């Protein structure tokens, strides 16, 4: 009995000491990492930080990498005489956009949101929730806003976020990269300069129609997230426009478009579909890869958008 008590005391004492050392390391290294994190001026996290904390643009662009790579705010700014910022974040889905919008409203209310919508945003995928991790560094500061959105995935999700190291998960190399080599960034827009080569069997390719997402399961959480996104925007008198980016190949179907249309009608939102725009279809020189426009393509696309926005009556004030 005495022996086990002795061993138990040793275990408890070591456990206690381990907790102390762990907390000390977490606090010190975590604080350092956080300081470093907020030093970066370019890159994905710098853009998120700017969108949440400093942005005051009248027009903001939201969405995933298509939003980030296809919309040049400088053209919108110069043509429409308005301020504009590109808040697009690579790989993100609609749940993230809902969270971002709520965070932006903590700071100010934009007049127009150009939301680049994606067919796959409504499809059930764990990555829609996992990628919310991009907001981990901001979680404790904006807990009240983010908690209801984060807990949709799992009620356990919040616990590790009290650890500073976990908040900074996967950010360190990213931070160092952009501190050492800043990324070109035009009001949040990150241009691509590659040019896609026309395939050798160009004629056959012309006949290509993309039809990838057959029989995908719809995640109603994502549908509700967009509904909530539109409601929040309406509450703040922000005009939302759903935009489908140009594609290089003809889309066979944009299977989830009826769901977007439902919400568009419900919230009186225009849907501008550029996916089959002939100025882009099979124009390989306007694309960086199969999914993204290059800078030339982005400039052309943004100019087309400017025309559409100018045609809008009444123009939101």
């Amino acid at each position, binding site marked *: 009995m005495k022996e086990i008590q002795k061993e138990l005391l040793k*275990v408890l004492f070591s456990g206690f000491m381990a907790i102390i*050392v762990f907390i000390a390391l977490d606090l010190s290294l975590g604080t350092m990492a956080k300081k470093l994190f907020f030093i970066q001026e370019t890159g994905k996290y710098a853009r998120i930080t700017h969108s949440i904390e400093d942005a005051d643009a009248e027009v903001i662009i939201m969405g995933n990498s298509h939003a980030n790579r296809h919309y040049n705010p400088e053209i919108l700014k110069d043509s429409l005489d308005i301020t504009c910022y590109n808040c697009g974040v690579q790989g993100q889905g609609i749940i993230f956009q809902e969270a971002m919008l709520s965070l932006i409203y903590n700071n100010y209310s934009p007049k127009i949101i150009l939301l680049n919508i994606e067919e796959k945003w409504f499809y059930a995928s764990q990555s829609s929730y996992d990628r919310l991790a991009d907001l981990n560094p901001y979680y404790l500061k904006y807990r009240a806003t983010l908690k209801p959105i984060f807990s949709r995935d799992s009620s356990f999700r919040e616990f590790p976020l009290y650890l500073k190291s976990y908040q900074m*998960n996967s950010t360190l190399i990213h931070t160092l990269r952009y501190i050492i080599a800043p990324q070109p960034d035009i009001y949040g827009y990150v241009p691509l300069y590659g040019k896609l080569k026309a395939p050798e069997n160009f004629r056959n390719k012309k006949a290509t129609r993309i039809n990838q997402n057959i029989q995908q399961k719809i995640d109603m959480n994502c549908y509700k997230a967009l509904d909530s996104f539109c409601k929040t925007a309406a509450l703040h008198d922000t005009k939302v426009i759903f935009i489908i980016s140009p594609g290089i190949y003809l889309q066979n179907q944009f299977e989830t478009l009826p769901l977007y249309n439902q919400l568009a009608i419900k919230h009186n939102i225009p849907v501008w579909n550029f996916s089959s725009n002939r100025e882009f279809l099979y124009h390989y020189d306007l694309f960086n890869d199969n999914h993204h426009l290059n800078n030339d393509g982005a400039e052309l696309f943004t100019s087309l958008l400017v025309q559409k926005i100018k045609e809008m009556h009444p123009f939101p004030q």
Partner: protein
Amino acid sequence: MLFNSFEFLIFLPIVFVLYWMFYKNTKAQNIILLTASYVFYGWWDWRFLSLILFSTIVDYMVGRNLMVCKNQKQRKLFLWISILINIGLLGFFKYYNFFTESLIEGLYLIGITIQTGTLRIILPVGISFYTFQTMSYTIDVYKKKLHPTKNFIAFATFVSFFPQLVAGPIERAPNLLPQFLKFRKFSYAAMSAGTKQIILGFFLKLVIADRAGIYVDTVFNNASQHEGFTFLFATFLFAFQIYGDFAGYSLIAIGTAKLFGVSLITNFQRPYMATSVGDFWKRWHISLSSWFRDYVYIPLGGSRTKMSKWVRNILITFLVSGLWHGANWTFILWGTLNGIYILFESILFKEVRKTIFSRLITFVLICFSWVLFRANSIGEAIQIIGTIFSNPGTLFIPNGADIVTPVYALLAISMLFLYELWNEFFAEKYKPYFFQKRYAKLSFYCLIIILILYMGVFNNSQFIYFQF
């Protein structure tokens, strides 16, 4: 239940406290462990608990009958009952569709068309592991190497002990079973060693395997879109993904078992430091390699036989080992290739020199075999190998933020390499003063936890070996 899940984080302390509350009562401890093991397994799919229970009852009964039966023919009959039931269950759940499809395709090639449907069968997690564990018990009892136990609870705990139930190490009854029959001591040393192994295991899994896995999956799941250098790099990362995944699981299992005063065998011993393929198999998945050695290779005649029979024995052993890993021709080819490596090595080199060159060559050969292991089909494997040799091309670098993933993986692999290098060559000779201090060690492991939190992937990903 996964080790890398929040459920396990709650489950483990509860079982731990309950277990040690009854430290004087071995029977109660076994009941707690057995219940916990069934909860752990049933968390995934409770229906398959019946399979474990059935296997347990069969081998317990066969063991008891083998003890009382003196007639050699009857004893053999009991042994075959156990083997047929165990292999039958494994064969049905794991291989039925594979053999049916292969038969249909084979007959089609010679012009015979048959209409046989495949079944929608769910592969019970860990069936290959616990089946081999119970079978080894019956074989050892049959060979009179082990006295069968009368204690059903202890036997059932041996079969289903949760730390190693679903992905090993595959324990032998003479090592594990007696530990459930005797008093287990609560010791600080065991708790401390166990916790350290769990931490290292999580580092291997969450930082190395899961980080590397992101790049590897991107490349191997879109094989037609990539070029030679990309495949080389992805294969290199896969070598560490599978090592981190499996050795990580084994370490967590061994560490968790230690928390309950149970000692499991070492399953990995720095395999990528091996000087030959033969040496590699003495360091990689040791519990399975030794199982095949003792229950397949040696019964077939081992190496003390004619050259032709020895070649046959080696090839059969590795072919079966490949098949054990999965119902796919890629695994069979992978196993056979490793058998061929061993044959050539044994024939060409009587003694392998322990040089950096021999270690490097071994690593390259093993990596080459991993292409077969990871490819989704034989055709894809051939295409990948062809691309590596014919079209080096450029290295695929993921877009935007995803670029950091392989960088984290390489950073973590470098840390692992230094750690293994130290343990392989210097750990026994030099013991730095700093690391002899208790608090230095404690800080070192706390730092590893911090590194896991900074660099790990936290998406509850499955362990690769669950599918085997």
